[in-house]
């Protein structure tokens, strides 16, 4: 089964990312909240390097029980990576596009082999 070496796990810090290359494709690998996620580094919008953008937590409205708006805050548990070209946001744990959950980046399994991390590409 084709696979690509990503990084020594001990060198891949929480909150960090790597971009690996395979057969003309780029794959973004994220280390987030103890797990690893890998997606094609190709924005569904205009093809930007979406995995190379900033990571920001989802913005949420805060409503009172009577439906009045109290303000905004950042989600405590949902984080997005943002395509640096135009701002398309993707859920770091699912690869879903935040603006339309029917759209999802191509994802890849990530496996640990001893001290090393690999992405399964085929």
């Amino acid at each position, binding site marked *: 089964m084709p696979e690509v070496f990503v990084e020594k796990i001990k060198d891949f810090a929480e909150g960090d990312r790597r971009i690996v290359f395979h057969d003309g494709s780029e794959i973004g690998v994220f280390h987030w909240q103890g797990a690893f996620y890998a997606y094609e580094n190709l924005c569904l919008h*205009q*093809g930007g390097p979406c995995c190379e953008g*900033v990571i920001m937590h989802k913005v949420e409205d805060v409503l009172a029980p009577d439906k009045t708006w109290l303000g905004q805050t*950042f989600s405590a548990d949902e*984080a997005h990576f943002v395509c*640096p*070209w135009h*701002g398309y946001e993707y859920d770091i744990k699912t690869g879903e596009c935040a603006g339309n959950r029917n759209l999802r980046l191509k994802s890849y399994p990530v496996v640990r082999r001893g001290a090393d991390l690999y992405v399964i590409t085929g």
Partner: protein
Amino acid sequence: MDLQANQFQRMSVEEFDTTKLLAHASKQARERGYERFPIVDVDSHHYENESMAEILDYLDDPVLRQLALSGARPNAKNARILNTLVGYQDMGGRITRYALRNYEKTPPGKHQRDTALTKRWMDAVGVDIAVLFPTPMLALGVHPQVEVEIALSRAYNRWLCERVLAQEPRLVSMLYLPFNDPDATYQFVKEFGERKGVVGFLITSTRYRPVHANQYMKTYALLEEMGKPIAFHGSYHWHDQGQGMLNRFISVHALGFVWYNMCHLANWIINGLPERFPKLKVMWLESGLAWIPFMMQRFDNEYMMRTSEAPALKRLPSDYMRDMYFASQPMEITDHGLLKETFRVINAETQLLYSSDYPHWDFDLPSTIYDLPFLSETAKRNILGGNAIRLFNLKVGAEKLAQTA
């Protein structure tokens, strides 16, 4: 360097380079074979505020120049001559090139930085010739001092002609007109109309002057005689009372960039300017495309009932609109069915011109046109370059100018 690192946003950036940022665009250019035909971008930008020290050398009024220089000093607090708008174009740091642009290196020596950076993204995406416009000065039409609009835009035009357009054949521009002063507007056309690289003139649409005022007729007549297009460039203005109803930048941007062009287009047609200046070429920039069929339907429908209020017209409002030129960006791409119909009703194959708006946050790549499934290869090439070459009478040889990596 940490990019505004905080609890909710983390990214370390070692360097910033436009060629690297746009590497995927270069791949698109290679895969689609852009080397086979010319691509002209009719609406792109630079940040003239970053070259203001050079521009102020061209400002004749010594008192205004002293005010501007004083305001440019560090710790000058609220002293500044160029008005700015409240807004969040960088999406709170999500569009990283806004914050990182200042870190990009350009070659030392005689190369003008704006030119070097512009050619870098043009090469990356496959654009051969770009029509270059300023950025903060898009709001100069709502500057409270008309004399500042005139002085700053004249200094900018002189700087652009001498330092950029005269030096770089791949860059052209439609020069800023100080539309709040009709006489100065006319004089600008006379002064700059024949300068190298000046392919037309620009009215920044965000302002409160009716385009049908009699004082502008001599300018339109002159432009018609010269064969130079006039373009209206959209923008927003959150201090406008109407847009002040909107509480988020997405709303102000989505509506503001169309609002002023809708007003100017309505006045232009209903007052019969296409009949008075039938050979004057009129362009509309950075309003996208969805507003055009709306205006066509809305005004055709009302004109049939209220014909007496537009006595100068000999055709339907939409017929006059189909004689106009429209820049594509920001092209609404979420419904290809609606987009296809929009292309049909505006005669896109001859009237639509590709524009990127790069480096602004909502830029469009050439692939937004080239990948449309309902266009023929001929139509794609017309929209991406052929229409602009004919409209601006550009001299383009067989050799591809863009050096895509």
